[in-house]
């Protein structure tokens, strides 16, 4: 049996003030999957992602990335992951190519390799006309492209996208969808969180729904959403909302 791209076992995360963000969460994402990780705000999605990528220290539980312990073998494990975070955690005065190039450097990419990869990503995400602008001068959509390019610079095998299309216009959303489909077909594993259920229905093959720090439902897209629009119903039921009541509002 192939090693999963991501295997989380009994993850628990308690913040310093005692707030339990994730409680006994277990999850497996197979290699090559396009996996939807859904849940309401504050359900524990971002905290789980932070524990996987090293932004947060897990309180207990284990995280394996392609069989490597994300804490004990953090160097090897992190080389395999690219994170596109929900918020723009970027030096606002830096230029797009520098932001992406620095990230490549942190991942150990040498100058020549970095340069050609940065050039490719600037072209691919149509950032070339904006190379002289600082990050703060870019529009929301362009900022999102820079952050995505940064996540992809070291060509990771597992790409984690935390609400990558939030605040993005329809055109860019479609560009991103096409690109993500392309790299997934190329063999990259993608974990996507999104509040846009039509996006998840369109892109993902497997889905997990998290609420109050636990996985409350998990399965294939077809199991959860046999007919268009029924993912929303499954989501509302799994997260404890009243579908009819919500629909009537």
């Amino acid at each position, binding site marked *: 049996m192939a090693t999963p791209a991501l295997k989380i076992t009994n993850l628990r995360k308690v913040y310093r003030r005692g707030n339990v963000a994730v409680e006994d969460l277990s999850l497996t994402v197979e290699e090559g999957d396009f996996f939807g990780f859904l849940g309401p705000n504050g359900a524990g999605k971002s905290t789980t992602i932070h524990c996987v990528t090293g932004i947060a220290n897990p309180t207990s539980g284990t995280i394996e990335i392609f069989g490597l312990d994300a804490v004990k073998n953090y160097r090897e494990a992190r080389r395999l992951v690219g994170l596109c975070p929900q918020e723009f955690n970027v030096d606002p005065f830096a230029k797009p190519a*520098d932001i992406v190039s620095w990230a490549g*450097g942190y991942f150990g990419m040498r100058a020549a390799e970095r340069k050609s990869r940065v050039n490719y990503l600037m072209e691919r995400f149509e950032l070339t006309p904006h190379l002289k602008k600082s990050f703060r001068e870019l529009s929301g959509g362009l900022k999102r492209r820079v952050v995505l390019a940064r996540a992809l610079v070291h060509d990771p095998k597992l790409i984690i996208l935390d609400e990558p299309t939030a605040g993005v216009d329809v055109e860019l959303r479609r560009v991103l969808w096409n690109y993500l489909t392309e790299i997934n077909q190329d063999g990259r594993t993608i974990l996507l969180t999104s509040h846009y259920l039509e996006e998840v229905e369109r892109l993902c093959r497997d889905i997990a729904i998290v609420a109050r720090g636990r996985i409350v439902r998990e399965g294939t897209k077809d199991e959860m959403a046999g007919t268009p629009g029924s993912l929303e119903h499954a989501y509302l039921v799994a997260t404890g909302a009243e579908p009819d009541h919500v629909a009537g509002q």
Partner: protein
Amino acid sequence: MGVNWVGLGTIVRRDVQRMLRVPIQVFIAPWSSALLFIFVFGYVLGGTMRTIGGHKYIEFVMPGVLMMNIITAAFLQSSSAIYFSRFIRFVEEMLVAPLSYMEMVVGSLTTVVVRATVTGVGILILGLGFGATTIESWPLFIFWIVAVSVIFGLAGILIGLWSKSFEQLNMPVVFFLTPLSMLGGSFFTMKMLPDWLHWMLWANPFFYFINGIRGAMIGVDEAPQGLSIALTLLMIAALGGLVWRLFSRGYGLRE
């Protein structure tokens, strides 16, 4: 597991690029301030001041001026770099990368030493150009610039990790760095103080830094160089240990 040298080099390159975005604040300001000291103490007041240990007053003051600027440069470089990266959250770029805490600290301190050295050498060139200073020992001079910048780079990292607001970030400069520099013998010798106030210098760590670099520049020591060097290395070890402990707990960095 080996060192991520490319990652370490990237931290330094990134911080140097950021530093060069604000050259007036980083380099021109301390050099201008040194020029003002040379003008006031060398030309305006120079003739009215007595010589100290056979040296003109400006020669006595210049090492203190240089050290004050190195201390400020080192502290501001690391404290603002850490605090700003936490505040904007781009520290997460490094946290998700295969970088060890040691590489992050060494990368940050290397930039501190670069900034402090360029600041210090600039002031030295001004001093030499205007006949306001000399160099007795290059090795000691380099030791003091590097050692003091590492101390205040480490102190800056601690404050950068601890601060939750810009006000907290600036507090150490107002309440510690400026007063302790002024009272650490930058502008006066121990003999100028009454006997009962000598403890004020012996108890002030800044006195040993200023004394050390003054020895390296004009050969005037009020405390033995060996004592100053030993205390300085002890401080580096203590602050380094504290920074290491906080980093390894993820304090102020990891949630």
